[in-house]
Structures are given as C-alpha cells and as structure tokens.
C-alpha cells in the first residue's frame, strides 16, 4: 500500500515540528510549511492526499489554501486546525469541503484519529 502524502501548514513552527514525527510514525509521508505562500506554491507541484492547515496566518490564509487545493485536486481532504475561540466561525464559513476541524490546543491522539478517518475515506474503506 502506498504511503499517503500529508501537508502540514501552520505559522507556529512548534505545530509542524511536533506533527511531523507523530504522523510519520503512523506511516505517512509528511511535508511541513510555516509560510503559507510556500505551501501555496507546493500544492501546484505535489498532489497531497491530506492537507492539515491552520486558519489564521499572515499572507495567504487557510481559506484561500483550501479553495486552491480543492480546485487543483478535489480528492484532497483538508483538516482545519484553529484556535478554540474561532472554532464556531470556522465551522460556519467552512461547512463545505472541509473533512474535519480541530481546536487548538489539541492532543496528538485527536489529530491522529481524524487523519485515520480521512485515510479510510480516501482508501474507500
């Protein structure tokens, strides 16, 4: 079985640094970005199965990235991570096309569980 490719985008480096090994250990291939413009470029070149993105970032925000990613590859599943306070707004404005939402701070096991569900959907299980 091929490894799924995951992109992680968050302007707080700690989020990327901690998610990468945790997801790799689960058997995924993981690229991380702290600059949303870099991530925007990258999705034009690489087809990611799953994108995990923060919502509020300088420059291109999570919403724009989601739109672009879905346009390029409708099969890509997007998981949005956002601050607890902005969760409701996030859910409202994103009701289409987002696989799931996770509020910060979150446990590693929470995101691993969401990613496993996204994987099951992608693999058509």
């Amino acid at each position: 079985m091929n490894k799924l490719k995951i992109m992680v985008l968050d302007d707080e480096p700690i989020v990327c640094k901690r998610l990468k090994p945790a997801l790799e250990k689960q058997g995924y291939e993981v690229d991380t970005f702290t600059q949303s413009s870099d991530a925007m470029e990258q999705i034009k070149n690489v087809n990611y199965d799953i994108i995990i993105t923060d919502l509020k970032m300088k420059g291109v925000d999570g919403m724009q990235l989601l739109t672009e990613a879905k346009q390029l590859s409708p099969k890509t599943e997007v998981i949005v991570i956002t601050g607890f306070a902005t969760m409701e707004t996030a859910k409202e404005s994103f009701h289409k096309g987002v696989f799931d939402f996770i509020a910060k701070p979150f446990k590693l096991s929470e995101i691993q569980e969401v990613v496993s569900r996204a994987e099951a959907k992608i693999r058509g299980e």
Partner: protein
Amino acid sequence: MWSRIKKSIKRLFPRKREKIAFQQVFEQFQTLLQNQQEAMELIADLGEKSGGDYIFDRKYLVDSISELQDLLLRMVKGLNLISSERYYELYSTLDRVFSPIEMELRGRLALSNAPYVISLTEMPLDTPELTGGKANALGEIIHKLGIPAPSGFVITNRAYNRFVEYNDLEERIHSWLELWMLGKETLEKSSGQIRYSILAGIVPQDISRQIRDNTKTDNEFWAIRSSAYGEDGDLSFAGLHESVLNAPATQIPDAYKQVLASLYSPEALTYRRQMGMIGEEAAMAVLCQEMIDSRASGVIQTLSLESSQPNCLAIYAAFGLGRTVVEGRDSSDRYIVDRAYPHKIVFKRIAKKESFVRAASRGGEEEAILPEDIQSKSSISESAVNSLAKWAMALERYFKRPQEIEWAIDSADHIWILQCRKLAISPEQAETDGNIREQFSTYPILIENRGVVAHAGVGSGRVYIVNNHGDMSVFPEGSVLVTKYTAPWLAQIVPIATAIIAEKGSVAGHLATIAREFRVPALLGIDNATEVLQNGMEITLDTHHRTVYSGKVDELINFERVQSMVFEESPEFRLLRRLLKRIASLHLIDPYASDFTPGNCVSVHDMIRFIHEKSVQELMEIPGSLTHFKGAKVWTLESDVPLDLRILDLGGGIDPELSGNKVKIEQVRSLPLRALWEGVSYPDSWSTRPVEIDFKGLMSSLTRNWDAAGGGAVNAGFNLAVVNELYMNLHLRLGYHFNLIDATMYEQAQRNHIYFRFVGGVTDLTRRSRRAQVLSQILSNYHFNVLIKGDLVVARLLDLPKEEIKSRLHVIGALIGFSRQLDIQLKSDQDVDQFVEQFLNRYANLTKSLPGGGKDEQIKDYGLGR
C-alpha cells in the same frame, strides 16, 4: 495599569468598613470559590500541557494567562468586598506577580533584567538564552538529577552584550563580517581582526567585580568554557569554541575574552555560515567551573557508535586531565558497557599510556611522562565504570538523546560530571527506512488506547511492580515503574525509572507533576496494569499511541532518538515551564505564620492560597458579629442533645412549609447540618464519664461572653448555624472553647470543603495544647490536613465527593461532644494517646465508611490545604 481600576474600585467600595448583609457576603464568597476553582483548573491545564501530550502554540499561552489574570482580579475584588476592603494591598500584589509573567510572554525578560554573572546553584533553569546551552544543561544536572558537577558560575549573554557595547565592538564586528561575506576580505583576515579587537577590549568593572564576588573560594584554579546558545542543543558547535583550563582566579577576565574571541574563530564562522546563522546576532555565555584535580578523566558516549556493539555505551578514560581523551582516543582505555542495568562490561581495552596531561602549578596545563609501572594499568576502577554508566544513562533518559559526557575523578576518588551534550550521530547511523509503522506492528500489544498521558515519550525496560516502600529500595535503575497507586512516596524512584505505568492517578495529580519534572514518560489510569504486566517482563511504552508493547521495540526507540526535536527543549515548552514556575509554585504554606501576607506572595498560586484562606476566615467570622443579621429570622433547634442551637436559613436550609420558630432535625434540609447532627447525636457522644466542672455553669458563663460580643437584634446566648441546602457555617461556644465548622456538600467534589477550627478553654495552655494534640491525631486519622498552633487547631479537607464529606461530618459531630471537656481531663501527656484511642475505638464504625486504597489521589487538594 491598575491605577484606573483602583480608582473606580475606590469609588464603588469606599474604604470605610461597612457591614454587609451575610446573604450578600455569602453569595460573593460562592463566586469567589467559583473563580478560584476556575483559576486552579486553568493552572492544572497549563501544567498538563507541559507534559507534551498536547500541541499548543504561543497564542494559547497568551490567552490562558490573560484569563488567569482576569480571574485573579475578580478574586481580589471579591475578597475586598467581603472584607470591607481590608486587603487593598492585593491590587499591587497582583501587579507585581503578573508583570514578570507578561514580560516572559513578550519574550525579553531573560536579558533585560538578568545579572551579568550568576552562580550555578542560583541560576534560573530553562533560560539557555541567558546562560547558554552548556550551562543550562549543567544547571539541570545539578538541580534536577543531583549528579555531582563542579561548582561555578556563568558569565551571561547579557555580560557579552555589555562587553561589546562598552568596547564599541558591534560596528567593527559587523563590518568585518560583511567584508568577508561579500568576498572582499579573507576569512582569516576578518576572523583575526575581530578576535584581536575582542582580546584588546576591556572587561567592564561591573562584570569583573561580579566575577570576583563569585571566586572567593579556596579553589584558586578555574576551567573556563564556552556556553553559546544553541551550542549543545540542535546545533553542534562541539570543539569549535575555546576552553581555558586551570586558570588562576585573577586571570578569569583574560580567559573570558579568549573564550569570547573563539566565537569568531575561522572554524566557528564557517560553521555558522553553513548553518545560515551568520546574519543573526551572536552572543556567548561563558561557564566558569572550579578545576577538579583530576587523577583520571575522559568521555562517555551513551550509545557506542560502532555498529558491532548495539545496546552498549562507550567509556574512554586516561590519567590526568581530559585533553588526552578529547583530542585522540587511541591512547585511552576503552570500556564497552551494556546500556541496561546492571551495566555489565562487555569489552575492555587497556591502552599503554606513556604520558598524561596535568594541571601546572602556576596555572595552565602541562604534559608529563607516566611512570613505567603504571603505563599499562587501567586508569579507572570497574566500580567507577559502573557509576559512570549509571549516571550516563540517567543523563540520556533526562535529555532524551544519546549524550557525550566529559567526566573526571579526583584524587579522593570522587566522580564529577564536567559537561554533557547531545551526541552527534551521523545520518547513516540514524537512518530509519521503510514504513516505521509496519516495522513495529510485529510486536505484541499489551495495552492499547487506554489511560491518560501524564508525560509524553517512549520508554523501554523491564517491569518492576512497586507495592510498598520496601520495593523502592531495590528498584532497579532504568526499569519501568508499574504501580497500583500514585502515592507521593513514589517520587524518589521516578528519576531512575525509564517509564511509569500506574493503575490510578490523574494528569493533575502528584505523580504526574513529578513525572514531568524528571521527564519520565508516564501513562496513568490503566486499571489492570499490575495484572497485565508482570515483574521482569521487557516492555516498551509509547504514550503517543497510549500503547504498551511486549519486548524492546528498537525501531521505535531509534525513530524517537533521531527526531530533530526533543519537545521538552522547544522554546514553547521552556516558556511554559518558566511561566509555570511563576504561576503554579507554592511558597505560602502556613496561614498562621507571620510571613503569610500579600507582600510574600511570589506566584499566582500563592495569591490564590492567600485569598482563599482570608475569604474563608472572613466568612467564618462574620456570624460572630451579629449586626450582619439584623432582622433575620432565626430558628431554634429542638433536640435532646444539650446544645442550644439556633439556625439562620439563607434559603433552602429549612422545610419551607414550617411555621413558628422551632424546628426539629427532620425538618432541617441543610445536608451538612443534618450530617453533622447525626454525629452529634450518636449515643455516647454526650455521656463520657462525668466531669467535675458543671456543664450548665459553663454554658451560662459563655452566654455572658457571647452577649457582650454580640448585642444585635438577635438574642444572644446560643450557638449559631448559618445554612442553606448545601452549606453550613457553624459557630459553637461550648465551655470556654470556641469551635467553628464551615462545610459544603455539592454534587461536584471540587466545590466541597470542610474547615474546622477549635481554640480556647478553661484550663492552662499545657492542657489545652494536649487537647489540640488529641484533636489533631483524630482528625489526621480521617485524612484531614491539620495544623496546630498552641491550643489552636485548624483542620481542612477539600475536593471530596458529597458522601465522603458526609462521613467526615459524622466524625466532627461525634468529636464536638467528645471534646467539650477534654482539656480538663488531659492531666498528662500520656493521656493523649489514650483519648485518641478511646475515640477511634468508640467510633470504629466511622472508620469503616472511609475509602481504602487510593487515598492520596482522593485527598488531592490543589495544594490549598497543605
């Protein structure tokens, strides 16, 4: 920032002490308790986040702190409201406590207020920005692990900035670097010019004076080493910077400059350029350690880099100072030792050592020839090899990565750790190919997706089940601690455990805190752990999947080992730990000590403790001043017990159908009062052997006292209970002593408490103190936290479920009758034990209702009651 708030508060609550109705005070107190609980939960959350199971960012920290500050402000207001502004000082305390916390969050605290020079024993931890990586690591070794390291001090990064500024070096350094970067000047020329400028600089007096202050010891010679930020962390500057060994104290400033200059050596500059750091502001802290008169010294690598020796560590040793070993290992003794306890020596090679390096008598080092008869002798004993291996593995466990450690043995055969850093592993050695998940899917899983993570990580070893104190003394270092309990006494073996699995416990509990302190991966709440896991089984715990594997999962351990980041070392976690130190630590312990004042509040926890204690005191004392109850309806309790009790109902405490002014206990709806009265009414409670002083006489004399103190609308001469359905505040005057009980019985355990205060009496202080002893021993037996001062007894219980509170109120009820004449009967110290025993025997049935087992977790009280 408070001045505006202060003014508006002054307007709202003028300083004049006014009587506020008890109802209002009580409501304010409830709000205060609620705020306090939220604040403590917030602190517990922050503590939990420091365990690594969560991903959080800086914003989370900023938001939590601002919420905490808001709650504290409300608590300060609340206390001032119920005390008629007696604690106005707390507003400035709040300001003082939170201002460094805000500065930490802004990120510049470390340098702006820091000293130029600080001793290793006093230096703050988690501040490598100030003290550099090497010194920070040594600080942790000394403070947390208790492994011997030479004493000394750090010349901080702030001193570096001061030195550069004092000598006008910034511009000069910058322009020489620029010329080199632009290719207009050679590396050697730029480096040489910068180093020359530094060596020609003057160490400012304020720095040199502080250096002198730190060198007033008998040991005249010092080792001066670089401690650059990042040096021993992710980046490895190993060997790039200079060390000066065996320098006399008077030459420290010169040696300091020499070490600073090495920050701009051609090698260091090339390295920083490769790492893309040349544009960043460089700074260097310098570590000064007392010179160890080394008989032998060397290096340990906690992971042997030779692939033929998996699971081994390597020790290199030679006579004299360490330079021989550091610079070339061919002529050193080499020991290959099992990483696992008891650290068997797998292989040893004793080299022929013709010369050695020693400290020259006037400072510096010199090479000398070894006498022929010891050239082929081993430089260290096997027991030293064993101790070194043990400490080395403790260091690796703590720092979470294979370590390279420099050590020395002095002429008295004491072993010292000189420095330790991350061992550089080449990419080939670190390679983990293929699908890591598939690789360890072959290991049988013993526990999966269960429990709560107290501290995150991977730990492997043999199971050792600890059931009692006795098991602890034989706990093999590096084993997995498996236990039914989370008792505080386990704390002493946590540092030597490689992982912890407990059947009970919560992430806010004591064991979790200790596991975090020593960075030991810990999974709690696995209810059958001691059945699934047997003594001696080799297992691997991975908290990230809350999984326990059978066997040693090398693939997983290697995977963890080569990850770029140890979460404990990341800036966010360091910041959180620094914040927690200012928030969660508790310094105000004894509410009756003279230092229990707002001025002595150091942390947020101290403030919460202070406010809590004072608000309870205020609440408890208010019913004594009857003007608060002007016009209130007071019920008289009809009972066979000779205790004249009046009840003031705040609402819901008495059957609403009832008219008149008399009430039977069956008509009382207040749960705490009913529980207490059950205890009061136990047969025997009021019929101890007759005492010589007439009970009624005492009652009448107390009536007079009460009358004099009171004098409000309510008739004096009785005991008063202020109640609602879930609350009771009881003031008793029995005999000449004064007893106060305040209790709540909510559904939520965290809202519950019992406070018990007992003071006074007719006899001399000695007898009254004996009575305090009796009460204290009895109450401790029922898990109260008890404090005695002379004849004053204060006992507390917090956070217990309703049913537990109920059984404790039974005890207190029984104790009221039992204690009323106790001081008269306690004629000698021997009587104390006898009376304690008498009570415990008589009310043996009350003990039965108490929970067994997890006592320590039950009595968790956020530290408020201790």
